[in-house]
């Protein structure tokens, strides 16, 4: 298509044009006034006008513009809501199905437009294709504001219109957005925003709409969970709706943390449920709402919340059966660490000691064993039992509680000595079951032969021993005897072993790590780790090897990421029924087999086992992704064993609805307001096919600018006309 038009020479600005116009008009007025007053001939007038026009032409130098181009179909961007929430029902179909159907209608209707389909959810909108429709990596949010901002900031051709396909339950703009704010959204691109409503009718639904907490979760400190409960879609919520808050533990039924009820008024209730999480790290909490009959969206009656519980300080209980240099070294190391809040009890006298003093002359306090192991036990992050006789000091009756404490997430270190392990009466007790090794019930409780502990293959791979090995190499100080420990429990690993003593078919563990339920435990079958500081070998590391050992052990016990063999995470939020993968990152090293086992949380041991997974990581490979498949709703723990290193663990939740389903009500009114504010129209999903395409866009492909006459001819003509005008005026006697 060719179009022709006229213009002025390049470099002539609008200001000059206007100046000339004003000058011309003034000149004409002068001529008119002159002609009236003196009765001049019409030649004077004509030559005056002609000379003025030719002078203007000489300045403007008129051009002829010839352009060639085409009328293109207008660009229309369709923003499709990709939130997981669109899995909610809208009549017989899901909102997702309605949205896709509306998209097909739009594609059929807007054949005279260039349609670009983007999916929006979190952040900038991304190109959408139908194949993505069932992928698990769906966003929770529907952040239209961010999508529009990113679109307006993107380079390239601007669209002529936007079409938003959504149920209207947008994260941003929210239902509280003002008309001004909505108008501002459209103004960024300067185009109308049409909306297609795919929400259908509101379903009868009682749901946990919002969950929030005041402040961060800190171990041992009360946290208030604020819940908003909503009732919509005509569901009768007249009675109080019970709510429970439970912690999902490993190998045990869920533990009740708090309970309450929601009294719904005008479709909304707010409940605050305070509770305390005793253990630090990643904890899973289930919030359950008992919805009334008729609720059609059961997915949002339950939330699985992940709390990354921090500690102000690691609170440790150190109990020692007698004071020794080993006790001293451990106490001094623990006290020197500002991040540790140490509570210590040492047995300083026995019943057979002759103090030769009245009780009032002694600085001794009774060992508050009952108080410690009942009332205060949950407040500790870990317990260190160092060479203490469980029978003599009446610890025996608290061992079942101590074992439960470990399974519930507490840490335990049993440090060797004559009164530790078998020698302390721990064999055959419930506490023995949470230790990483078995404890024989018969035989000598300890051996007095000196030996140098041997670092196992797992010990060489364990980050917990890395610094000790850096300082001392493969050698360790000679120990004066060892406790008798049995074979490792399933899943436990030995970091040090005895070079001569056997436990079953394997070398006897000397230092072993294990997991029991949600907790971790360490068995250290020697009483001379202070020799890592106080020995000729220890001196080689300037005494720092002792601190390095205990920092590694306590760090591993407290799940410090520095001492984990791998960093684990999910590739995306786990949604029930949708595939999810585990991302594994490790320090590069030797090629190893990686074994991943999955277990459900909040169920007593012995539940239906989940299939184990396995992959191989080559030496130079730092990270890998392992598909876990589609999981059902619930809490899970993934235990990853990288070669022979201690296992790393990730607790995670898979929700059916999650935050995306929290508010099931569609918001057609918001979509209508958005369209109205931006000059668009709002249609139902069924009417998507009636949307009109915007006008076509003309795009120039060629533009030729040619002067009508050469500049010197314009100048000659202007000069000649001025001369002619001068001559006519002289003849008329005006000069």
């Amino acid at each position: 298509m060719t179009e022709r038009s006229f213009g002025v020479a390049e470099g002539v600005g609008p200001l000059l044009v206007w100046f000339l116009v004003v000058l011309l008009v003034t000149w004409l007025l002068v001529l008119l006034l002159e002609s009236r007053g003196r009765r001049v001939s019409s030649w004077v007038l004509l030559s005056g006008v002609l000379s003025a026009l030719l002078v203007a032409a000489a300045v403007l130098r008129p051009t002829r513009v010839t352009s060639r181009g085409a009328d293109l179909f207008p660009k229309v961007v369709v923003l499709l809501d990709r939130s997981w929430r669109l899995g909610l029902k809208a009549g017989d179909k899901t909102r997702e199905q309605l949205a896709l159907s509306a998209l097909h209608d739009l594609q059929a209707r807007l054949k005279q437009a260039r349609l670009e389909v983007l999916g929006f959810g979190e952040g900038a909108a991304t190109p959408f294709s139908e194949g993505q429709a069932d992928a698990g990596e769906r966003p929770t949010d529907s952040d239209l504001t961010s999508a529009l901002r990113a679109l307006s900031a993107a380079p390239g051709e601007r669209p002529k219109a936007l079409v938003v396909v959504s149920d209207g339950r947008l994260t941003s703009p929210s239902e509280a957005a003002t008309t001004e704010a909505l108008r501002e959204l459209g103004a960024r691109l300067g185009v109308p925003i049409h909306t297609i409503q795919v929400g259908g009718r509101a379903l009868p639904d009682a749901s946990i709409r919002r969950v929030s907490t005041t402040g961060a979760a800190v171990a041992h400190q009360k946290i208030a969970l604020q819940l908003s409960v909503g009732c919509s879609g005509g569901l009768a919520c007249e009675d109080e709706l019970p709510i429970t808050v439970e912690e999902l533990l490993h190998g045990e039924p869920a533990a009740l943390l708090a309970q309450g009820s929601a009294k719904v008024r005008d479709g909304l209730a707010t409940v605050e449920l305070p509770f305390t999480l005793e253990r630090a790290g990643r904890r899973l909490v289930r919030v359950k709402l008992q919805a009334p009959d008729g609720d059609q969206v059961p997915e949002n009656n339950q939330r699985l919340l992940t709390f990354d519980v921090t500690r102000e300080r690691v609170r440790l209980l150190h109990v020692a059966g007698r004071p020794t240099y080993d006790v001293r070294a451990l106490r001094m190391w623990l006290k020197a660490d500002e991040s540790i809040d140490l509570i210590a009890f040492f047995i300083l006298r026995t019943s057979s000691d002759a103090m030769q003093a009245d009780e009032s002359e002694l600085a001794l306090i009774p060992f508050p064993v009952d108080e410690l192991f009942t009332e205060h036990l949950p407040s500790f992050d870990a317990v260190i039992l160092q060479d203490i006789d469980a029978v003599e000091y009446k610890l025996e009756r608290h061992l079942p509680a101590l074992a439960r404490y470990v399974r519930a997430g507490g840490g335990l270190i049993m440090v060797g000595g004559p009164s530790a392990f078998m020698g302390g009466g721990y064999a055959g007790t419930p506490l023995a079951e949470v230790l990483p090794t078995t404890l024989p019930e018969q035989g000598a409780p300890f051996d007095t032969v000196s030996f140098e502990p041997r670092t196992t293959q797992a010990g060489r791979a364990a980050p917990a021993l890395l610094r000790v090995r850096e300082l001392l190499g493969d050698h360790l100080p000679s120990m004066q005897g060892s406790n008798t420990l049995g074979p490792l429990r399933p899943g436990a690993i030995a970091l040090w072993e005895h070079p001569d003593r056997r436990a079953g078919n394997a070398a006897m563990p000397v230092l072993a790590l294990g997991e029991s339920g949600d907790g971790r435990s360490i068995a250290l079958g020697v009483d001379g780790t202070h020799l890592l500081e106080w020995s000729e070998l220890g001196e080689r590391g300037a005494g720092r090897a002792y601190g390095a050992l205990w920092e590694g052990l306590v760090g591993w016990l407290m799940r410090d990421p520095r001492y984990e063999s791998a960093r684990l995470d999910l590739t995306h939020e786990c949604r029930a029924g949708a595939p999810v993968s585990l991302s594994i990152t490790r320090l590069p090293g030797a090629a190893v087999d990686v074994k991943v086992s999955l277990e459900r949380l909040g169920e007593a041991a012995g539940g239906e086992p989940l299939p184990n997974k396995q992959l191989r990581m080559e030496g130079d490979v730092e990270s890998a992704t392992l598909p876990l498949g589609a999981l059902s709703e619930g809490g899970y723990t993934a235990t990853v064993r990288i070669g022979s290193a201690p296992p790393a663990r990730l607790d995670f939740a898979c929700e059916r609805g999650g935050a995306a389903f929290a508010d099931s009500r569609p918001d057609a009114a918001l979509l209508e307001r958005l369209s109205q504010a931006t000059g668009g129209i709002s249609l139902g999903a069924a009417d998507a096919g009636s949307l009109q395409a915007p006008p076509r866009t003309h795009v120039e492909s060629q533009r030729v600018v040619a002067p009508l006459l050469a500049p010197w001819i314009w100048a000659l003509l202007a000069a000649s006309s001025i001369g002619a005008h001068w001559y006519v005026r002289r003849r008329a006697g005006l000069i």
Partner: protein
Amino acid sequence: METLLSRRRALLTGLAALAMPRKAHGFGEVGAFNPRVIVAGGKRLQAPRSSGPSAWSMELINRTSAPARLVPREVSLDRPELCNEPFALWAGDADVGSLTVAERRGLAKFIRLGGVLVVDDNDPQRGSFGRSVRRELLRVLPESPPVRLDASHVVYKTFYIVDRPVGRLLGPPTIDAIVRGKNAQVLLLAHDLLGALARSEEGSYSLETEPPGYDHRQHAIRFAVNIAMYVLCSDYKDDQVHAPFLMRRRAQAR
């Protein structure tokens, strides 16, 4: 004046402790309290105080749950063995002379590792030993001059509640110490502590206390036990959990 009965009782108690089958022989001994005696400049601990360290261990075994070595060894300041354990005892009654470079280096390493050193002047009236050790310590640890320990220091309440330091001599009512960080690492005694503990082969105390008396001796032994407990437990009795109890006890004692 101490009675024969009290001497006999102490001896019998000690022997009984030795004869008693304790759980840890070998295993469990590596961390036992061991009052190693420092040999510097070739000067050794002389009789009768040479039996003091084992008597100290004996008292600790008899009176507390702490294990202790009954035959403590000597250790030279210039030997690497000095840093094999966190405690050493430096006793004497005469000027120690000038330490060699190796001795100074060994002593500095021991202190910097966190070791505890008790300096016991056996003749505090002359004071030449104490002065010479202070002089040498100042050369080794110029940045840490001795300071007077407060009466509330943990060493006075680690096992017994004691009011003041006591040895064979009553001596000054306070002790000086080199404090590094939060820990008193060198205790400078001018009370002849080993003189109060030393026993003859028959089991009787080798040296009379000044002023003489059973109570004085007991106070000296209690102070020695407290020092041993300080070595083994550091500032355990300063923990908050003990504070109200100890305040009550002190109030009752007054």
